[in-house]
């Protein structure tokens, strides 16, 4: 496979100076926030090239977050599906998801920039919990914006954030989910930018966020590349699969395999398929693919998973899709619930509803779109504790047999 290593190309390198990945990305921000974006870009570029910063982050990831996360051979599921399933266990990280990788990096940057207050948006609450955790560790004030719908369906995470000392501000505007939480976080940031860093939770927003968050998440892909190479005698998996909300866990694992022949698959929720059903658009600071009406008003997404309930997608994914390097199928909520149960029963691993999308796609395509005998690496980016109550409600208290697949 030839890889486009050029700046702004499809090789997951640095975006252009204009923050572009192909046609997507950029910095569509009010003037009041441009200096902060420029400051962050410079701070990150410097820090990322600074061995001292990298060593400090690596230590935190190892000693605090528990990295490297294991690679698990999912033998029972593999037998059942006829493909060899490998699970990258980022759900075992401290706080229960991949979000901590990004947040620890941004917390170090916050300190480096001399700021002491974090604002964040959250959907499922995992990014909010991770941010609240880092704020506790670093002694920062922390405000987390969360849509009212999500406050309700992810109540456990709201309580966790409060325990960690963060203030959770419910957002009542618009669809009352992730997109509106981002609006509110940006409104806070423009009023507080002198003291405050916006700790964005995915590969979206204005430059440098999509690039910075991908770089902070690429530890998933780098580890998985080495782990699969060892397990497969120097080989690579045939397929690398991750769920896509904004796309940070997917970008992190893809970054480790973009220069190989592995098929890269980002699984979207049926009700939030920005890639496929969206059109080019500009919201929250970048040009990407976006669910919108004919006039350009942003549509609401709908997903059983709060973390994927977003009408846009990170700009680099839009570029990887257009460039043909990655593909972005969808799965329906029902299949996700089945996958949630199946992985629990077969492997003793209760996944978050988000990565259950990736598992659902593998269940559907094994022996079809994925030839039998293939090796499939799934990014298991979060654990399901936060979803247990919501799934109990959806299943009307019946944990099921998981036989659906």
């Amino acid at each position, binding site marked *: 496979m030839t890889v486009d290593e050029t700046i702004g190309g499809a090789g997951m390198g640095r975006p252009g100076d*204009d923050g572009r990945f192909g046609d997507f990305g*950029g*910095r*569509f*921000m*009010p*003037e*009041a926030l*441009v*200096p*902060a974006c420029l400051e962050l870009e410079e701070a990150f570029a410097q820090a990322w090239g600074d061995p001292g910063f990298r060593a400090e982050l690596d230590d935190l990831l190892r000693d605090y977050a528990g990295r490297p996360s294991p690679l698990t051979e999912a033998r029972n599921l593999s037998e059942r599906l006829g493909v060899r399933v490998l699970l990258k266990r980022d759900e075992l990280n401290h706080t229960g998801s991949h979000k901590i990788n990004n947040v620890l990096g941004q917390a170090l940057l916050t300190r480096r920039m001399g700021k002491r207050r974090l604002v964040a948006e959250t959907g499922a609450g995992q990014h909010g919990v991770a941010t609240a955790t880092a704020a506790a560790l670093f002694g920062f004030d922390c405000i987390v914006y969360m849509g009212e719908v999500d406050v309700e369906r992810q109540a456990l995470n709201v309580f966790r954030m409060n325990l960690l000392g963060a203030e959770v501000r419910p957002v009542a*505007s*618009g669809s009352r989910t992730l*997109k*509106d939480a981002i*609006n509110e976080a*940006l*409104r806070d940031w*423009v*009023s*507080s*930018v*002198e003291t405050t860093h916006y700790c964005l939770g995915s590969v979206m927003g204005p430059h440098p966020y999509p690039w910075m968050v991908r770089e902070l998440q690429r530890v998933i892909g780098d580890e998985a590349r080495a782990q699969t190479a060892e397990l497969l005698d120097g080989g690579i998996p045939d397929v690398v699969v991750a769920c896509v909300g904004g796309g940070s866990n997917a970008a992190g694992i893809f970054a480790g395999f973009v220069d190989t022949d592995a098929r890269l698959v980002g699984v979207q929720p049926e009700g939030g398929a920005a890639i496929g059903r969206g*059109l*080019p*658009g*500009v*919201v*929250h*600071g970048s*040009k990407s693919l*976006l669910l*919108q009406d*004919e*006039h*350009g*008003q*942003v549509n609401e997404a709908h997903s059983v998973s709060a973390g994927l309930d977003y009408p846009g997608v990170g700009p680099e994914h839009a570029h990887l899709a257009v460039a043909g390097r990655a593909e972005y199928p969808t799965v329906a909520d029902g299949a996700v619930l089945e996958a949630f149960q199946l992985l629990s029963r077969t492997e003793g691993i209760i996944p978050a509803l988000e990565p259950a999308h990736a598992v659902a796609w593998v269940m559907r395509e094994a022996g079809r779109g994925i030839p039998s005998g293939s090796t499939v690496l799934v990014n298991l980016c979060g654990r399901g504790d936060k979803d247990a109550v919501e799934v109990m409600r959806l299943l009307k208290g019946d944990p099921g047999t998981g036989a659906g697949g």
Partner: protein
Amino acid sequence: MTGRLEAELRRRRSEGAKLLVPYVTGGLSPEWTDVLQAVVAAGADAVEVGIPFSDPVMDGPTIQEASIRALARGTTPESILAELARIDVGVPLVAMTYYNLAFRMGDLRFARSLAAAGVAGAILPDLPLEESGPWEAEAAAAGVETVLLAAPVTPDERLAEIAARSRGFVYGVSRMGVTGERASVAASAGVMAKRLKAVTDKPVLIGFGVSTPQQAVEVSAEADGVVVASALLRVVLDGGGPEAVGDFVAGLREALDAG
């Protein structure tokens, strides 16, 4: 070349007037164009017409509420421009919206439809210098003046470039924050006006939070005038019709004229 918006604001300024540019959300109520005309009759020098967007990140609760209400009535960019095309208010109009609405229609088509509806200028607050070049070119080609915004944190060099590239007037943001009524004017408003006046002779207007006649006068000590949005929309959202809004604008006009 100086456009219609800038020419009119310069003319009024040379007469010794402080400039008053109120903001009205397009499609907010069935009688919104009557509100617009009442605003002009009460002494507006130009009017900003907001084209509502689903995700107005620079706006506080009042403009958010106005946007949601307008959208709920089925308001679209096309419906607003069609209504504007049917009237001649006698002062320049400036469309204010977020870039995605222009981008979806296509920059040139959007700019041309503004011009066709008689709109002289455009403000797109989520297009900073680095992103607005292509839009500015298409707008200029269609005869639409693009007003750029400067913020209190804008460094001197950027400020000078914003002032140089802005058309119609230069919009100084009074303080760090979103739009919305405020009990007092931030000290940053005067600083903003002074900094802009030092680098340009284009009209300098200050907006964001200017709510009362007294605040308008205070801000206009340094600036050429003010943009007033949320406080005016509050009158409409609280049930006020063209007459009530006209009274509100007349109060601002009177105070500015009295100095």
